[in-house]
């Protein structure tokens, strides 16, 4: 059994004696007898390091992760440079907590400041917070920003948002006193006419681009429609695509949110990822959670601090902008390292590679008999294919070939994702396997 208690039995006895005590029980005397646990926890006995490694290996070996994969839908496999895990495992970052003591935490504060700056540059915004849990909760926090900034209780949400993002919004909305109006899609894109018809009195609109079908939305027109009724535009963005696409800030979005997972963070069965939130200057003080700011010490040395803290729960309590305390700092730092290492050219190359490979795959799949793309709008790295063959049959057939296919959306439609990780050989194998299914 491992123990991380360094004090020996003798040392513990000596510590008790220094307090005039002879047993631990005397320190626990405030716990009423009626609530004391008088039997050992029903858990297996402790294990040595080697045994724990073996046990966990047993779990890990039951997962299958070594096949080519064409599945995204909110979690994306991209290349992760080795420096990211190396730097993120430095004990000074890994084992610190929220940088409350600024002088002793300048490294983490600056790393977060740089993350905020990088996110702002990526999204074309003026300000960013230090992260929230994930893209879905970032969208939920953006809903609260819209409510509080406009004092309106209705929010438009596009059905083009990822299912989990919509699900989280539906969970949060009734608690926040918000009514969600779900905007349908037309030809796979957020129905602009429906937005216009419902924008009056709405706090804003949340829409994704690329959306849940991989299609690129007309954020500028959606922004205009909500702005015409003094609502706010929240763009849910995919960060890699911003290496190529116009930035939400330039398209009229007031708030940009999304999940930073594609920026160097492993899939890890859904988490931990990182939710980013960026906004225009006038909404800076409405951002939830931690925000790092630059200032100076008494000698004029540049210094970083947690700022705008009076909005936060530890001061404002029930009147805080959000309850968030712990966020996803280390994941934010990983995303920061990714953006710094890739640089503008690297990010554009990743985006270009995803775009080219996805279109190479889409074109070949759509050329197969009985298969076609469901939508005609421009897409980035995900696309929907429909066919007369059931999605389940396709999935099983690909499985038989050692390929993780796209995500079944329903019985006839499959959402494929192709990234820079998929080689031409893999794509060709996918197409060949699908060809067999069609035959």
């Amino acid at each position: 059994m491992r123990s991380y208690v360094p004090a020996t039995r003798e040392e513990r006895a000596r510590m008790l004696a220094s307090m005039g005590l002879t047993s631990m029980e005397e320190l626990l005397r405030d716990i009423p007898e009626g609530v004391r646990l008088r039997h050992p926890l029903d858990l297996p006995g402790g294990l040595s390091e080697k045994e724990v490694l073996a046990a966990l290996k047993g779990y890990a070996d039951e997962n299958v992760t070594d096949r080519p994969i064409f599945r995204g839908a909110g979690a994306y496999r991209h290349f992760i440079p080795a420096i990211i895990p190396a730097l993120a495992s430095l004990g000074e970052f890994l084992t610190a907590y929220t940088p409350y003591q600024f002088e002793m935490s300048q490294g983490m504060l600056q790393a977060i400041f740089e993350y905020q700056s990088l996110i702002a540059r990526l999204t074309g915004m003026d300000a960013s917070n230090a992260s929230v849990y994930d893209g879905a909760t970032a969208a939920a926090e953006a809903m609260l920003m819209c409510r509080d900034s406009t004092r309106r209780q209705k929010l438009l949400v596009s059905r083009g948002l990822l299912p989990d993002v919509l699900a989280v919004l539906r969970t949060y909305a009734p608690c926040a006193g918000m009514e969600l109006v779900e905007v349908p899609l037309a030809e796979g894109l957020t129905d602009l006419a429906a937005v216009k018809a419902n924008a009056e009195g709405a706090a804003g609109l949340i829409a994704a681009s690329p959306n849940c079908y991989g299609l690129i939305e007309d954020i500028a027109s959606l922004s205009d429609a909500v702005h015409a009724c003094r609502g706010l535009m929240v763009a849910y963005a995919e960060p890699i695509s911003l290496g190529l696409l116009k930035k939400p800030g330039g398209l009229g979005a007031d708030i940009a949110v999304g999940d930073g997972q594609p920026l160097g963070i492993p899939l890890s069965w859904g988490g931990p990822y990182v939710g980013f939130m960026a906004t225009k200057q006038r909404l800076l003080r409405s951002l939830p959670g931690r925000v790092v700011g630059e200032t100076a010490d008494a000698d004029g040395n540049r210094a970083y601090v947690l700022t705008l803290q009076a909005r936060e729960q530890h001061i404002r309590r029930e009147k805080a902008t959000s309850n968030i305390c712990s966020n996803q700092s280390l994941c934010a730092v990983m995303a920061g390292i990714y953006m710094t290492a890739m640089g503008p050219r690297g990010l554009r190359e990743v985006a270009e590679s995803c775009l080219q490979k996805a279109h190479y795959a889409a074109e070949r799949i759509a050329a197969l008999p009985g298969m076609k793309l469901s939508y005609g709008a421009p897409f980035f790295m995900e696309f929907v294919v429909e066919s007369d063959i059931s999605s389940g049959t396709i999935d099983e057939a690909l499985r038989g070939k050692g390929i993780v296919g796209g995500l079944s959306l329903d019985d006839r439609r499959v959402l494929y994702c192709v990234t820079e990780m998929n080689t031409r050989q893999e794509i060709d194998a996918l197409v060949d396997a699908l060809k067999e299914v069609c035959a």
Partner: protein
Amino acid sequence: MSRSVWPTCFEKSHPDRRGADIPALDVPVKENLLPAELLDDAPPALPEMSEREVMRHYTGLSRRNHGVDNGFYPLGSCTMKYNPRMNEVVSAWFGGLHPLADARDAQGALRLTYDLERALCEITGMDAVSLQPAAGAHGELTGLMLIRAYHARRGELAKRTKILVPDSAHGTNPASAAMAGFEVVEVPSGADGGVDLDALRAACGEDTAGLMLTNPNTLGLFETNILTIADIVHNAGGFVYYDGANLNAVMGIARPGDMGFDVVHLNLHKTFATPHGGGGPGSGPVGCKARLAEFLPAPVVVKREGGYALDADRPFSIGKVKSFYGNFGVCVRAYAYILSLGGEGLKEASEAAVLNANYIMHKLRGAYKVAADRPCMHEFVLSTENIPGLTANDVAKGLIDRGIHPPTIYFPLIVREAMMVEPTETEPPEVLDAFCDAMVELKALHEANPGALGEFPLTTPVGRPDQTLAARKPKVVG
């Protein structure tokens, strides 16, 4: 380290450098795949640095930071215990698993989730657990949503609008209650630092949805009246919520489920030794008694013949609170920790945490004011109130110069000049002694020369930053 500025990545940028590459395109390149109006003229203005520069940049930043690996970190309510490296290794084995993988390809992750949930049920005395919440505050919100869903299903939500929160509570409690749509009613603490029973009785009624409580509380004191407190709230038709931030005091000693609590959240990054990552990621699983289980976030992991599966068919579930299934990588680390220690080891950890806290409190009792005159649990609160002119902030800055991360200061709000000390079980007595010596030395320095502490810290890259400037003219991006 003396005063120094570390240039930002943008200041270190040189045109045309880069720190990472990807494979050359192996498919035929096509032009104009996207309409020109969708494309930005230039990629985002990210810095341009070589791989070596990126390594040095972040390594340099790391040297301007303090973690548990560097030294003592008795930050109250945060449980800054040692983070075993083994757990980092095992977590990485799950890094490649896509969250939407077929259940047949994710049996290991599903089984681990199932087993961790069972272990957390046993540790807390609850009947069901969800790993979906991403952090403690997120767990609070989720737990309150369960309470909300229960009252709503009984048609009582319109009436049960209030959540009671002690004045000593973590700020997340009232903030979470407000976010869950409840009205917050503050309950004062009694003279002994616990919940004032008369005030609680007066506050409880037909409008009570529940009470949020930390036990031991933020003064590090066990609520001796916990069973009475739970009865009062239950008799009013409310639920009792356990803020698990302080669970490290009682593992294997007492369980929230046996104290009358109906819902708990845990902080895996505190009690179960997963690294805090400079502020996250954490993980905030929520546990509950059977009568609330049907409301837990969906999907839930179920064990069926032939294997484990995700069950999303949960008609009364509050829904999802996060994408996918939570901060799974953090859960893997916590599970490895539980397997390492076993039931006996968890109890030993809690006992040692309580011993360490009491040891320090006993040694510092003469020098500083102790908020309560009884044994503490895993943490306690000191105050400089007995020392004219000395502030908790000055003491904190003096500790920094001695290589020690300061305690949590100015919390709980009910103690003036508060310093909340939580040593954890993973520190040996010589580290505790050195901390006590530093605390006594700082007091002596102040008494010999009032104001002497005002210039601390001297050993850090920067002196005390101007927070007023930062908040008046916020500069949050560079």
